[in-house]
């Protein structure tokens, strides 16, 4: 049998549908529901993965598979599915994550047995995957919007899965409201496009920007930036993200941070590079700036967290920022007429997209495993887990190294590409605007270093040293399927890190389709061992080479050991306890403590609330009790969202006095209206 991408995709979509249906049917029987839902989702993910790989590996020669959903069922509206290279790329991401997370969920969902309905969880999980996949492969506006909204809805249901907790409810509603706003913006934007094209299909929208007036085009761009930006979680539209991602079950968090926020990137790429035509300069500048701000603020706020999942959620904001830096630079290059550089920027952005999907998925799964084992998300209650769950710790470490953009893993490669794009951007223009490139580059460096600091904290406080609570003390390694899920993503992180040129080749059809350029040949030097940077004498890097070189140097320390230290003994002993009876867990660094220097350095931004209370009877020198409290509130919450909320509620309260119950007033309203309308009409 000959497997075609279209068929595999259809299998995948149907698989999710069947999985969802199965979950609803097996509501009362959690074990079969668990196996069925997540098993089927894993298989569907695999099928989608194959479809995407086949499609992308086929190069530019293969045609674009297209077919219609539900043709016989609904005669009036066409739901066309279209798997072009961009869709295939995002299909790759969603399917890969779907596969890994489903495997993980097989073990993870057992934690809900007897507590929550696993059938519902499985069904919604499948539905979410179905909606997301459909959204990525939608070939027309209707299907896109419907899938978009279904995705938001299922994601909302999953976020509020544990709705008995007040925190979850609050986060769920916030998420729901924000996704409603983003849907509104996107619909408006598409209406503007539709007005110009008169047709719903994506093919007809290609380069539609050329037919629009500049004002409308700019309006559409801004609407999409806000709409997709909310979904992606750019600053300052991100406030829902750190609230919603942590409260969802961890497998859902992984899916949301790994894939769902990427739908914003997909939409943005689709619209800006496919539909809106050659952009004006300020689009690129805006995107680059927004990206830079998101990256820096995201990681700074991440550093302030000691809730492991919230920390990861803030890192999603950071990474979305990094992705947007690549895309923004690409937009600027498109404007200045440097298609090759634009392609480089696009590749950097998209490379980081899949990288973030893998390592963030991995990290959320790791956090899920930790949560599963310790029943807490608070890092201040963890510690010492590396001895209790060694494999989880290892996988988390891989993710941490990758997200900190350290060689030789994948985060480094995509940030390296972003640096190259930014550096070369400096020469593309003579205006002062060129300064934005190196400045963003410097901020990217800051982001990377802060991310490293944050993950030293996250990994160090969570896994190293002594357990800080009984929960952590009695933690145990998680089940095989959970480790499999994490292992798969960890392996992908390594592969994407070590073989960048091979991966860039997969992006050829995509860049060809969007910008009309293929870069894999130019980026690949020395038989694909070295990643180049477009210009002949530009920078090069080879993660594989560096990694193997480091391994080759390993004989040096071992040689030193052989020559000098062969006969030495190693003694295990307690760490010096400063004359106490052994070090207690209270005598090791905490997450709050670790990030304190950064909180102090960026005091102006964080404006932390800090308080030391002394309780005493007579003299302040003899305190009976000391309490310390400190917390950081987001500047946007404080400066924008809360005042806006207060303003609206005040307006609402004010207007309610109109409806005071007095019939005389009511009649008066009518006559005043009458009068006003008469004046207005005459």
């Amino acid at each position, binding site marked *: 049998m000959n497997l075609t991408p279209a068929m595999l995709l259809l299998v995948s979509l149907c698989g999710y549908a069947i999985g969802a249906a199965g979950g609803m049917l097996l509501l009362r029987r959690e074990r079969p529901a668990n196996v069925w839902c997540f098993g089927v989702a894993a298989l569907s993910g695999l099928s989608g993965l194959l479809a995407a790989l086949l499609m992308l590996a086929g190069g530019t020669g293969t045609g674009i598979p297209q077919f219609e959903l539900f043709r016989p069922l*609904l*005669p*009036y*509206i066409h739901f066309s599915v279209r798997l072009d290279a961009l869709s295939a790329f995002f299909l790759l991401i969603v399917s890969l994550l779907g596969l890994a997370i489903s495997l993980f969920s097989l073990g993870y969902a057992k934690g809900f047995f007897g507590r929550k309905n696993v059938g519902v969880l499985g069904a919604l999980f499948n539905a979410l995957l179905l909606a997301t996949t459909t959204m990525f492969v939608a070939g027309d506006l209707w299907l896109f*919007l*419907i899938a978009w*909204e279904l995705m938001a*809805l299922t994601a909302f249901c999953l976020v*509020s899965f544990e*709705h*008995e907790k*007040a925190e979850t*409810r609050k986060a*769920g*509603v916030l998420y*729901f*409201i924000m996704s*409603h*706003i983003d*849907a*509104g913006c996107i*619909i*408006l934007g598409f*209406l*503007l496009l*539709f*007005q110009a094209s008169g047709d719903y299909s994506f093919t007809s929208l290609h380069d539609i920007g050329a037919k629009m007036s500049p004002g409308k085009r700019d309006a559409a761009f801004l609407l999409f930036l806000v709409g997709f930006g909310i979904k992606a979680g750019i600053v300052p539209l991100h406030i829902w993200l750190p609230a919603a991602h942590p409260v969802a079950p961890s497998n859902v968090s992984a899916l949301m941070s790994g894939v769902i926020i990427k739908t914003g990137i997909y939409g943005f790429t689709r619209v800006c590079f496919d539909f809106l035509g050659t952009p004006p300069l300020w689009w690129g500048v805006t995107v680059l700036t927004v990206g830079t701000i998101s990256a820096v603020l995201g990681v700074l706020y991440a550093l302030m967290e000691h809730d492991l999942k919230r920390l990861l959620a803030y890192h999603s904001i950071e990474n979305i920022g990094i992705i947007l830096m690549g895309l923004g630079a690409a937009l600027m290059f498109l404007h200045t007429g440097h298609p090759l550089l634009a392609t480089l920027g696009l590749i950097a952005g998209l490379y980081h997209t899949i990288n973030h999907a893998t390592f963030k998925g991995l990290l959320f799964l790791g956090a899920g495993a930790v949560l599963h084992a310790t029943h807490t998300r608070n890092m201040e209650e963890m510690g010492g887990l590396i001895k209790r769950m060694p494999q989880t710790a290892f996988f988390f470490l891989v993710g941490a190294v990758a997200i900190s953009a350290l060689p030789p893993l994948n985060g480094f490669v995509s940030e390296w590409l972003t640096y190259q794009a930014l550096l070369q951007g400096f020469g593309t223009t003579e205006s002062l605007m060129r300064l934005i490139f190196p400045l963003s580059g410097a901020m990217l460096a800051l982001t990377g270093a802060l991310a490293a600091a944050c993950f030293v904290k996250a990994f160090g406080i969570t896994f190293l040293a002594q357990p800080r609570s009984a929960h952590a003390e009695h933690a145990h390694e998680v089940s095989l399927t959970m480790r499999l899920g994490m292992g798969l993503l960890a392996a992908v992180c390594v592969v994407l890190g070590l073989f960048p040129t091979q991966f860039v080749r997969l992006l050829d059809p995509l860049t060809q389709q969007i910008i009309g350029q293929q870069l894999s040949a130019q980026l690949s030097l020395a038989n694909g061992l070295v990643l180049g940077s477009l210009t002949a004498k530009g920078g090069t890097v080879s993660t594989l080479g560096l990694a193997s070189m480091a391994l080759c140097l390993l004989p040096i320390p071992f040689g030193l050991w052989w020559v000098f230290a062969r006969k030495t003994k190693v003694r295990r002993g307690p760490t010096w306890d400063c004359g106490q009876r052994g070090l207690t867990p209270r005598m090791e660094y905490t997450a709050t403590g670790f990030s304190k220097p950064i909180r102090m350095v960026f005091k102006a931004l964080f404006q932390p609330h800090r308080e030391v209370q002394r309780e005493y009877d007579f003299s302040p020198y003899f305190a009976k009790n000391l309490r310390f409290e400190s917390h950081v509130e987001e500047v946007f919450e404080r400066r924008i969202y809360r005042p806006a909320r207060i303003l*609206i*509620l005040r*307006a*609402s*309260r004010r*207007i*309610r006095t*109109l*409806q005071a119950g007095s*019939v005389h*007033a*009511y*009649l008066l*309203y*009518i006559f*005043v*209206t*009458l009068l006003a*309308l*008469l004046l*207005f*009409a*005459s």
Partner: protein
Amino acid sequence: MKELALIAVPFVAAIAALLWPKDETRPWLLPATGVVHVALTMWLLIAPPPVEPMAWVAFDPLARAVLPAVSVLFLACAAYAVSYLRLRSERPNRVFVACLLAVLGLLSAGHQARHLGLLWIATEAVTLAAVPLLHFNNTGRAFEATWKYLLVGGTGIALSLLGSFCLGYASLHGGGGGDLTFVALTAQGAGLSRPWVLTAWVLLLVGYGTKMGLAPMHTWKPDAYGEAPGIVGALLAGAVTTVAFTAVLRVRAVVDAAGAGVVAGRTLIVIGLFSMLVAALFLLGTRDFKRMLAYSSVEHMGILSLGAGLGGAGVWAALFHVWTNALTKGAVFLSAGNIRRAGGGRTQDEVAGMAILTPVSARIFVVCMLAITACPPFGPFFSELRILRAAFADGQGAVAAVFLAALLFAFLGLSRLVFAIVDGRPRAAAKKTDRRFRETAGVIVPPLVLLGLSLWLGVATPSVLQEAWTAAVQALFPLP
């Protein structure tokens, strides 16, 4: 003769209901009549009868575009009423059933009325027939609500009567015969006296606007909807308001023909947006979910008014919205009625955790909320999208922006309240309610069916309806 049957059958049934001896079986008259009525309207919808131009009552294109929606909504409410009245067996239902049926007959008349006077009489009669319905619960608050309804509604009716006179005088003043059929008025066209026409338009707009519940004439709504049983609310919000809206549309056609279409359109847009904003702001603050529905209804009336104001494509979209609003609003009111019964209260302070107490109703309620706030793929999403498109096509970007902002605020208010009621842990008081509400098929299926219809209308609008709306727009505002 089928069009007259639409009016006659309900009245006959109403008389039968008055004579029917047993409370237990009497409610069955409702679905029976409903079925007949729906069958008739569907028949007429698919095979429209020829319209005699000067007839006072006819199933004309506008009636064809709107009346079936009313009919379907009535059937759903009637089906629900059977179970509902069984639950409320402590109250006598003779008058209630009869009045419901009478309202249906009057609605049929109102929708088909092609004469200004007849239209006024039908609307007036609906208002009166609805009074016993509002008063069904027989509480002090219900009495107060009814009284406000009568007073404010009566003022509206008086104004619309005045407006009718003005229009008639415009015809006379302009040299016409004072014939108050719409056909004749339209035919007189520019011959109508412009000042009188404008005066008439404003009076009629405010008058029928009061009926519709456009802000700031909406003041009767929160009390009335809050106190009335769910079915009555559904009918008021989905059907009675529709009559007033068709009245406005018919008058607007006359004003258009008289050459004052621009002014009329602008007033409609202004009052529509104003209604939406006011409703949205109220929605943000209210804690009572039945009053919330009233404000939501105000908002949707604003949308209809906005659509009507936008002309051609807008009117088409507004007719679409009449359908989606009727169906969805029906579903919302019925499921809200369930929540009210099961939760034992009306505000978020009294009711919470309904997802645990009555999972099915609660979920339906949430989905209804989604539908009514225009989440795709439900009908309102598509009809409001059409209005948005019409606004864009008309070059009214600012209007579109205000429209969207109002929708957003309304959504914020609605979702906040609905989730507060559905999520969380049940209040202690609700658990103790001994007359625990049971989620029988009778109270679950009608809202579900309405929701399903709304969904269907959204993703796959039947071509016969599209064609009916196009015909109605053509008939009202013939292209020059």
